[in-house]
């Protein structure tokens, strides 16, 4: 149910992005989606990749601190109101969204949202009860044609 996201510590200065991207490219690891959070001094690069175990090892060997976090991927329709309906699932619950980002899934009219919940298991239970598709890791890591 939960998928693995890699986070990297980067300093907020020119040229910091290319090195991790190149390391992944050399190993033939595909970046499915990413988000870059920034502060004045530093940034956190969050990645969903095709082979997270190998990616974590090679990034660590390249000198990065890598944090592995379990996040939840949810499929929604690419249409008005879809996100609002999804958010309604958590309305009046104590579940907090720490951060989220989105990417098109490669399927017609569908999008995938990546959520970092403070209580991922409670969130998943609510989603399933509401009949919302929590995307399996296989689908997210591998390209769907």
């Amino acid at each position: 149910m939960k998928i693995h996201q890699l986070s990297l510590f980067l300093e907020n200065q020119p040229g910091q992005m290319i090195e991790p991207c190149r390391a992944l490219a050399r190993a033939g690891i595909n970046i499915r989606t990413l988000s870059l959070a920034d502060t004045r001094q530093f940034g956190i690069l969050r990645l969903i990749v095709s082979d997270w175990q190998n990616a974590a090892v090679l990034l660590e060997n390249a000198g990065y601190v890598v944090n592995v976090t379990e996040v939840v991927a949810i499929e929604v329709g690419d249409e008005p109101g879809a996100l609002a309906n999804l958010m309604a699932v958590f309305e009046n619950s104590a579940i907090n969204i720490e951060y989220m980002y989105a990417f098109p899934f490669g399927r017609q009219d569908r999008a995938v949202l990546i959520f970092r919940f403070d209580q991922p298991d409670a969130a998943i239970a609510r989603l399933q009860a509401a009949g919302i598709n929590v995307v399996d890791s296989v689908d997210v890591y591998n390209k769907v044609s």
Partner: protein
Amino acid sequence: MTPSRFHPASAPDYLPLAQMRQLQLDRLRGVVERAAGHVELFRARLEQRGLTPADIRGLEDIARLPFTVKTDLRDTYPFGLFASPMQEVVRLHASSGTTGKPIVVAYTQEDLDVWTNVMVRSLASCGIHRGDIVQNAYGYGLFTGGLGAHYGAEALGATVIPISGGNTERQIMVMKDFKVTAICCTPSYFIHLLERAGELGVDVRELPLRAGVFGAEPWTDSMRRHIETAGGIRAFDIYGLSEIIGPGVAVECCAQNGLHIFEDHFYPEIVDPETGEPLAEGCEGELVITTLSKQAMPMIRYRTRDITALIPETCACGRTLRRMRRISRRTDDMIILRGINVFPSQIESALLAVEGTLPHYQIVLTRDKGLDQLEVLVEVTPEVFSDQIGALEKLHDKLTFALDHTLGLRVGVRLVRPQTIRRSEGKAQRVIDRRNG
């Protein structure tokens, strides 16, 4: 201590006090006589004060003698303070001078024998003995650390691996394959070694290594705790400086509570670093040492620039040698920032007080529009890194708060990627001063 582990060279460590003071007085008279007879600079300074060696009647008269300072060694470069003709000098060492000329120090055979003697006693004091396998990772060469520890360990009867500094992978391989039980190096290099071993999948705690003799740079008790836990060893502090002899001026014992000074050879005083006035026992000040038995280069009241205090109480280990507190700072380490004195050791203790921060940091001084700025670069470790911005900002704020609180002034903190602060194989470079130029 079990009697079988007692090394005969350590006998003076237990000399009754009255006997020790008499020995010191006899030797002090001898060394003043020797310096006055053979070193022009000292002779002239004694004359200026209207003193002769005969004025030394008691140990307290030492306070009447002039100080020797580091610049005296530079001004008389290279051989101006030698008291022996070159025919009797069998070894020269030199310090790596950061500015201009290095300082040169000389040894007769007798001086080398004294050095070996105090190093044997130092290692014995750290519980190292015949049968131990000692990895000597101090640099061999002009620096006194390598050869000093080498001859001491050999004379002790231990097995010495003269690996010198550097080539960390090989150090780890040798430590493991040769079943090393004791290591000598700088504390910062040992921390680097532990980190590298971890990356290579070697857990140093599982190796036979059980003791480390660390010196040549100031380090803190927090660093000791880290080293002892992460390395599964006991970490001992050794003190020395080439102007006096090299390593082996003072060392910790099994009590790890202050360093015993080998005062049958090195007479300690604590003075006010500003006025040079002697301070009462127990007060913190600058350590001043007189070499009581040195032939080639006697040092009379040498200003070490190291800040410490003598500990009046007797030690649990039974040695009668006086102890000094661990050196945490030096008068010339001091950073003057906007008129406030800042010591790197203060920054270190503040960083260590914040949970989870390992001591890999660097202090960068810059000048912005005429105002001095201090920024502390702190490496982010896997232990503290989080995928959430808030957690890292909290860490940053905690570090900033701890530093502001300790130093009493506003400094910057910058989190940097791990392994981006250059590791040193000798003394760690903690301060980068870019204020001029």
